[in-house]
């Protein structure tokens, strides 16, 4: 990118003025120039070169003993210019982190999808439900950065349940609290924040204070046959994106569980 000559001469004039005045007005001019540089596509390397030339020309007319203060003033001006670049740079960094998280999520979902489609799951039918639930509980926990998760399906003797917790941190949810959360699941909002936990009558008395994400595992005919519950998200509370992921996993689980059930019935006939 070539540097417009006008920008270069304006920069030089603004820096000269700042070195003389050293006030907020000239610093603000620097900030405005930084914004303009971004909009006009001036690169950081160009800016550094322009600044260096402008500083060198400012120093030509300065006595030796005044040089340190002029250089310090010029540095403050250059910081103003760069702060606009910093803003934008942080935006790129944020986007890169988000993109990496999305790629990781997509890879995990693909992996889970191939696990669930694995024919061996249905062949060992007695364990099929437990295995599906375990896979889903673990993936849901990892994808939402929760410390604890549980997935359950079916009722009575047919009920299967799996839990997963963060082995690395060793953090998990008190089992009595976890059971209580499952029992009162129908009364819970899909996303419960830590701060709301304290205001929830059914939870206030419990020893732990956690955030909770609850989604149903719904069968093809629409009846709710299971539950996926996540708790103890370390940083912040569960987000809308977390809820979408959990719902997606619950759907994948339901499809795999129903298919396993069909296989089993077919084998028994």
């Amino acid at each position, binding site marked *: 990118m070539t540097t417009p000559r006008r920008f270069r001469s304006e920069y030089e004039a603004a820096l000269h003025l700042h070195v003389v005045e050293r006030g907020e007005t000239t610093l603000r001019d620097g900030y405005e120039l930084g914004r303009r540089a971004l909009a006009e596509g001036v690169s950081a390397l160009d800016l550094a070169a322009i600044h260096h030339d402008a500083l060198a020309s400012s120093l030509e007319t300065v006595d030796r003993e005044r040089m340190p203060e002029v250089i310090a003033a010029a540095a403050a001006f250059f910081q*103003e210019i760069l702060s606009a670049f910093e*803003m934008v740079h942080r935006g790129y960094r944020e986007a890169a982190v988000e993109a990496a998280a999305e790629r990781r999520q997509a890879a995990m979902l693909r992996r889970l999808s191939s696990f669930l489609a694995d024919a061996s799951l249905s062949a060992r039918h007695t364990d099929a439900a437990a295995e599906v639930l375990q896979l889903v509980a673990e993936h849901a926990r990892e994808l939402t950065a929760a410390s604890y998760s549980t997935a359950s399906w079916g009722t009575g003797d047919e009920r299967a349940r799996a839990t997963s917790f963060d082995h690395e941190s060793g953090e998990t949810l008190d089992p009595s609290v976890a059971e209580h959360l499952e029992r009162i699941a129908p009364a819970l909002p899909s996303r419960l924040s830590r701060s709301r936990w304290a205001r929830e009558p059914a939870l206030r008395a419990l020893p732990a204070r956690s955030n909770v994400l609850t989604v149903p595992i719904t069968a093809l005919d629409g009846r709710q046959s299971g539950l996926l519950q996540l708790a103890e998200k370390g940083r912040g509370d569960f987000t809308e994106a977390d809820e979408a992921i959990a719902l997606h996993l619950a759907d994948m689980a339901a499809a795999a569980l129903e298919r396993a059930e069909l296989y089993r019935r077919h084998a028994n006939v």
Partner: protein
Amino acid sequence: MPNEVRVEIARDEDMLPARAHGRALALELGFSRTDATLIATAISEIARNIIVHVGKGEITMKPVQEESRYGLVVTATDSGPGIADLEAALEHGYASRGGLGLGLPGARRLMDDFDVQSERGTGTTITMTKWRVRDELELLRERRRLLDEKHHGEQRPDGAGP
């Protein structure tokens, strides 16, 4: 603790006192020059936001002290039409240059905490904070100073200290 400062924002020039006070408060609270510059930039972005999209409002800058950190809380309020799509405004900005990551999303990224309350027809309040963690030496010096004041409080009624 320095005092709270309030600046009315209606014209481009009003950005100057807001920036100057924000910078001065930041330096008084012990923020580095770099952080003070970033704070001045974030203040400029929200001031510009008020000038361009609402017309007028005000910016308040308030120092806060917690045991292990100092903070500078900047609050911008206006009674404009409110922000229609808050999520989009925070993610991409809504000015033509917002796509670059300036404006509200830019200010958000320069500060540590950032919160926007906006209601259609009532206005918008932006609260943003930059924190500075106090190091061990600083805490030790303060404990010593407090002890000192306690012991010699009566001999030194002028209450020496920063």
